[in-house]
């Protein structure tokens, strides 16, 4: 794809996020700057476990007044208890994003609204009580099955908003949120919709928790991306939703653009089911494609929000990829130390934090990284470092199981 003209750029006019670091975008960003870490044992209201791996978890009740209001206005008579936690997270982030964009559901009625969300847990049936009873040969009440069939995140949000337009749920593991934003950008560029809500959501499930533990990827302490003593990742839960629209439409309704999604690239490692290519070959390709689509070179990049999970293999591959394509000078950091790894939501939350960091033209360091791993192919900001940014264009990148890699080129709006 060739880079669009200024007028045809895809603007970010709304952002909403909730996670273990906070329930709104401003709160999460403030806690990032203030290094408020909320990494705790998994609470019983999610599930009981004797595994000693902390996580970044939200309160039991996810929906705020704003989220509840969005559900109530739908007129669809949604029963909150029949909507799973990933759906609640989606609604909560979408409510904030729409408010931030200055849009009410009524404003969307005459528009073609694209909705695309990434998830990993949100697409699975994991009602343990139902499963246990079924396995015992009983015939449990099928309501959990119906709830599962009613939990396609994009379909639910479309029903809540009562809008028309393309919908999709991307299930590319940990890159899902980034891919959702990139695909939404394509939809808008191809005029498949007038406006798009894109992002991702994932509640923490027992399957993911035990699965990551089985792969020996979880840390028993708060994660330390890029640190020489890093010992793995912490899981988290949350959602991020961005409102995207063509710049010309945003201007028409006098909406403020936080910035623009300038480019998107995705590529495969073709290497291993769960381990990234050590040289980050797929990520190199994804970054090269995204830069090309944005029509910019490496010199224009002022900041990189890395996937930065804190696992040995991820951090090594990511830095190898950046070094290989000569992205060597701009500051790199990870925000996983404040959010944990939110799987399908990670890319969306990180795109939002990237936009805010670019807008303030300075970045904090990587929470948890005390002693930088000198064996990495390039450096990253440690916990106590801060850096001014030379410009307003940056990268948010994601790596995933299956060897999937994706990257967004984001530009913050000027002062």
């Amino acid at each position: 794809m060739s880079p669009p003209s200024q007028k045809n750029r895809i603007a970010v006019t709304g952002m909403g996020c909730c996670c273990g670091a906070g329930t709104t975008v401003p709160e999460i960003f403030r806690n990032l700057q203030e290094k408020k870490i909320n990494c705790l044992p998994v609470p019983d209201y999610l599930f009981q476990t004797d595994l000693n791996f902390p996580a970044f978890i939200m309160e039991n009740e996810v929906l705020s007044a704003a989220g509840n209001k969005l559900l109530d206005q739908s007129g669809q008579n949604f029963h909150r208890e029949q909507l799973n936690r990933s759906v609640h997270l989606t609604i909560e982030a979408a409510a904030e994003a729409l408010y931030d964009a200055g849009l009410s559901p009524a404003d969307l009625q005459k528009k073609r609204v694209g909705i695309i969300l990434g998830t990993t847990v949100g697409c699975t049936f994991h009602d343990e009580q139902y499963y246990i009873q079924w396995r015992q040969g009983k015939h449990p009440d099928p309501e959990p099955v119906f709830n599962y069939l009613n939990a396609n995140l994009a379909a639910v949000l479309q029903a809540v908003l009562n809008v028309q337009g393309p919908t999709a749920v991307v299930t590319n593991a940990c890159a899902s949120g980034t891919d959702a934003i990139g695909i939404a950008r394509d939809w808008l560029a191809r005029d498949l919709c007038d406006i798009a809500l894109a992002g991702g959501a994932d509640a923490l499930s027992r399957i993911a928790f035990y699965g990551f533990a089985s792969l020996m990827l979880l840390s028993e302490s708060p994660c330390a991306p890029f640190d020489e003593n890093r010992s793995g990742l912490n899981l988290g839960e949350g959602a991020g939703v961005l409102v995207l629209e063509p710049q010309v439409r945003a201007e028409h309704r006098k909406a403020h653009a936080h910035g623009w999604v300038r480019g998107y690239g995705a590529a495969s490692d073709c290497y291993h089911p769960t381990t990234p290519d050590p040289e980050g070959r797929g990520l190199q390709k994804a970054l090269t494609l995204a830069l090309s689509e944005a029509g910019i070179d490496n010199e224009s990049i002022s900041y990189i929000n890395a996937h930065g999970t804190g696992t040995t293999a991820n951090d090594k591959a990511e830095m190898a990829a950046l070094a290989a394509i000569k992205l060597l000078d701009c500051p790199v950091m990870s925000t996983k130390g404040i959010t944990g790894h939110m799987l399908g939501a990670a890319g969306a939350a990180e795109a939002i934090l990237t936009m805010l960091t670019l807008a303030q033209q300075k970045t904090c360091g990587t929470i948890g990284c005390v002693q930088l791993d000198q064996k990495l192919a390039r450096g990253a900001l440690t916990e106590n470092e801060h850096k001014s940014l030379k410009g307003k264009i940056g990268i948010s990148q994601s790596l995933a199981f299956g060897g999937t890699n994706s990257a967004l080129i984001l530009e913050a709006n000027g002062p």
Partner: protein
Amino acid sequence: MNIMITAAVHLDESSVGLPQQCASQLRRADDFIKLAAAASVEALDMCSGCQEPNEESGLFVGTAFGPMQTNFDVLGLIVDNEQTSPTLFSHSVFNSAAGYLARLFTIQGSSQTFTDFSWPFFQALAAGSGAISSGRLKQCLVVQVETYSDLLADARQQTGQSAKPWQAGAVAWLLENQGDRTGWCIDDSSIDSSPAAAAEYLHRAEYLHVGGSVIPCFDPLSAAIAITDLVNQKNDPEKSLHCEITAPYGSVGLKLQHS
């Protein structure tokens, strides 16, 4: 830009054998991955004049239920307090098949998995053809794979959907720029999803309207299989295919032109 369907195949679980050329790489794979791989091998084999997959090739997988049985296998270990298998867990992730396919065929471009109870194949098809028409890719595999689970089968029965059991299977199409070749091209496609009661996704009253005929499609793969069969019938250069699938959860339009 015309997007050509250079190969279209479907397989069901009774006819699938482990592809010889990738048997060793698939030895630990679950049925979800094996079915997707077998259909993809057959699609790539069918297209003798096609380019080998490379960095301009992509992969778009659609599924309604994903590796559901594998997911329950993991859950079973957890509720029994047994050691979780890392291999089983990695295969329970919904893009597991896409990851295997990318490695098996060295598909280095974009690899996307879409999960959708309504129109999984057509979601993947729209994304794949969009990627080619936008110039991102020159070639892509579009795959739908379903393996279901015993729990789902019982839930269908319990909720009164006791008709023919769904059969696991996979559909794979290979799309490329048309170039100067002749064959079926995608002229237009549309997906309209609308809210529906959850039971409709188990009942699946889909009807494919094509050429004055109506073909009932009562499982999540049927519509994609039926259109695959139409594409593979003797080509008639005069013909175009206008397919419309209707269901309580929306409709799909697909216009194919032989050129």
